[in-house]
């Protein structure tokens, strides 16, 4: 399912421009969405899911214009959505909750529904807890119920907003593998702050800042943005003032800093190979610098 977004703007009451003239094409397959807190990722996903109405612009999902009621419903028939703050009904068991959502998704056939719910409980490794009430679930377990819920009707469009938040490392890895396998001919839109997750699953990604797109391309391109800009500095003095410090590790001769900066932060600085995270930091640092210089606007 292809998503075509043009001139999309969302202004919340109170004048916050959560999305600001966004043009974006999302092809079939897995697509990553990165951006700082408040960049507008959740807003974009809610618009695509039909919960929030755009203030301006056009969004076409799989040929359906979401501005129209029938268009929205058509998209929702193909949609699996995991909200950032998932709420569940605490008095239901995991199995009942999934059964209920399956009914809401129109899976009226009882045995098919049961089978699907059972499969998904297996997929998210909750079979053992399936008949416990959600009230007693840990945060990560609840998140896994949310993931299962999104996959229920075998959606052609899957929108997951920070799905791996709160998952333990094994579950996180299992889930992102599941996602890429699932993608195939479907569209999966993944937003996350764990840059590595995008690197491990997506071919393409976009970076949002203040409701605008500041990067759109393949994951390799994003990594390349930091080429020649990643440095290692070992010092027992103060941290480098230039650039963004990515990590600081205690070392025998002081601290070992990994820094993303346009120029070498010091004479002893040693260049390093960039990672995806460095690429993301380089892109956002460029954007911030451009924002500071009034001439560039």
């Amino acid at each position, binding site marked *: 399912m292809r998503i075509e977004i043009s001139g999309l703007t969302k202004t919340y009451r109170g004048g916050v421009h959560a999305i600001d003239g966004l043009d974006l094409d999302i092809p079939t397959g897995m697509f990553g969405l990165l951006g700082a807190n408040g960049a507008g990722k959740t807003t974009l996903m809610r618009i695509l899911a039909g919960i929030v109405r755009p203030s301006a612009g056009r969004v076409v999902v799989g040929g359906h214009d979401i501005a129209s009621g029938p268009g929205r419903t058509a998209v929702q028939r193909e949609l699996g959505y995991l909200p950032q703050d998932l709420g569940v009904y605490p008095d*239901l068991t995991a199995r009942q909750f999934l059964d209920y959502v399956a009914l809401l998704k129109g899976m009226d056939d009882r045995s098919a529904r049961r089978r699907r719910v059972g499969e998904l409980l297996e997929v998210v490794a909750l079979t053992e807890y399936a008949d416990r009430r959600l009230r007693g679930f840990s945060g990560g377990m609840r998140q896994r119920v949310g993931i299962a819920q999104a996959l229920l009707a075998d959606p052609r469009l899957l929108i997951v907003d920070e799905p791996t938040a709160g998952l333990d490392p094994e579950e996180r890895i299992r889930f992102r593998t599941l996602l890429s396998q699932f993608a195939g001919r479907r569209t999966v839109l993944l937003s996350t702050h764990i840059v590595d997750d995008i690197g491990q699953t997506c071919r393409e990604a976009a970076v949002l800042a203040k409701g605008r797109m500041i990067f759109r391309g393949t994951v390799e391109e994003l990594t390349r943005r930091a080429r020649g800009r990643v440095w290692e500095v070992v010092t027992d003095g103060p941290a480098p003032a230039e650039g963004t410090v990515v990590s600081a590790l205690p070392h025998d001769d002081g601290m070992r800093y990994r820094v993303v900066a346009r120029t070498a932060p010091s004479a002893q600085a040693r260049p390093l190979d960039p990672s995806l995270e460095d690429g993301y930091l380089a892109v956002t640092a460029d954007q911030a610098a451009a924002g500071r210089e009034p001439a560039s606007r």
Partner: protein
Amino acid sequence: MRPITLWRYEARRTGWAAVLGPPLAVALGIAAALAYPEPSDTTTARILLGGLEMAVPLAAAVVCSTLIGQDPAREVQLTVPTPYRITLLRRMIVVLSWTAAVAVLAAAVLIVTGWWARWPQNHGAFAGQLTWLAPMLGLSGLGFAAGAVLRSPAAAGAIVTTVWAIQQFFADAVQEHLPGRLLYLFATTRGAATDDWLANRLVLVGAGAVLVALALILLGRPERLISEEDE
């Protein structure tokens, strides 16, 4: 027609107040009738019917006023193909059906034991069911609509109880004019003009239907439900 299982899930969402409210209302009506110190059959019958006309609709309406807002899974609800307003309507139908079942049972007991007939303005066993049905639909429609507008169960409940109480406190003043008489909730047991009774009942039913329709139109905008809840 969707599977009965779906209705069962929606019934669970309506909560304990929906289950306990109507029988409790009937019980309170009976208690009030028993507590009357100098029982004359007419007044006892009037209080018994009054319980059906006053307490039962109030219980249903207050529950209906809490249906909108505070749904923990509303973000999922809003993205499934089943429209959320239809889901809310289903929950309201569950509440009203249960209330109706309790009320019909109570009315049947009153009819069989002869108490129904002892209140002169009882309007018979069949049309007489409008005694509780009309105020239940009218007041519940108000509660549902107030919930849709305010998205705060506390506020919507406050409006329902206030409207109910104002009609109790100022029964005479409310019924001085025709519009007030037509919208008066307790026309069977405290009605000022018996001739208006059927018109009053039908207007209440109609008002409830109109209010529910308005609420459903409002609820067609998902954005209203996702943010700005009046906590």
